[in-house]
């Protein structure tokens, strides 16, 4: 999930993603939406006197500690369900696939 925000050109950095096309005074598209801007784009926009950009801002990142804790809870629960068969050859594929599936669901 991401939201958009408008930045003064001076604060824009290479790698940011445009949420809306950049237009010149005549309404012509200089750069399309969804473009990852580069230093040379920024240089060109400065030359053309563009003042602001609308970029996609990633949503507030989840605290890494939080993610790590949830991953550990999920892992512990799966290992508990498999507590008698964790070393069984017949269970290995299912155990690891369920661990991966549960971790994927956290994203």
């Amino acid at each position: 999930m991401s939201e958009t925000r408008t930045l003064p050109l001076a604060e824009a950095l290479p790698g940011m993603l445009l949420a809306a096309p950049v237009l010149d005074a005549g309404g012509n598209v200089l750069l399309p939406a969804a473009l990852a801007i580069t230093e040379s784009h920024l240089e060109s926009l400065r030359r053309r006197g563009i003042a602001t950009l609308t970029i996609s801002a990633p949503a507030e990142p989840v605290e890494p500690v939080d993610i790590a804790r949830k991953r550990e809870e999920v892992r512990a629960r799966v290992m508990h369900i498999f507590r008698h068969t964790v070393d069984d050859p017949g269970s290995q594929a299912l155990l690891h696939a369920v661990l991966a599936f549960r971790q994927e669901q956290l994203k």
Partner: protein
Amino acid sequence: MSEQPTLRDMLARIQRLPALPAVALELLNTLSGGDPDVASLARRIAQDQAIAARVLRVANSPFYGLQSRVGSIHDAVVVLGFSAVRSLVLAAAVVTGLPGGHCAGFDPSRFWRHVMGTAVAAQSLAQRLGRPPESLFVAGLLHDIGRLAMVSVYPELFARALTIACERDCSLRDVELEIFGFDHTAVGAALTRRWNLPEEIIDALAYHHQPELGAPGGLAPIVHYADAISKALDFEEAEDTLVPRLHPATIDALGLDWQGLSAVLADTQTRFESYRLLLG
């Protein structure tokens, strides 16, 4: 143990149990093939409102992604097909028609969540492996039906089995064998034989814990894996859920690779969210 019943005692007493609704038995018999009178069956299903309402709840769930609401069993058959509706009706009939009785420590909701999870996992495995999805859904749905019969006929003995399994943190099936001298697989097979179910379903019930003993090419290996998948995905929502021991050669022989297994898990989870609507 003098109070230990025999399987024969058990089966004699099963006759006093509430049976499945007649229309469900008829539907089960149409699994063997033949040319069912779909219109007449649909009319009869519609007369059982408890079943029809549950079926329509699932038919209208996001899993089927229908553009407009299905309002009757007849419409559900037209839109989803007879086979899909038959599976749903059987599931609803089994859930509503076979109450768990009163047995200390036995949680019917937990039981049905596990059963429904096994049925949808078996269906999902079937589609992935090119096996018959409907027979496997039904086999999953009925795989632990013997346990329900044991709960109803011998509630005190079964309560003791549950307590011991909990105390020892071991498989309930091992304790069934110890206390009763037989387990739920034998009861389930005998019960479904009485219902005249197709032999492949009886075989799957009888051998879902020992798939290596089932009929070659039979359904037991898939129900064996589906049972474990349902436990592994935590559908029971119970603290002491325990994945049963899997038979390695059986699992290998299914030939399901990592990608296939991952897809089955995701698909099973999605199906479960819809099918659990049958539970009430």
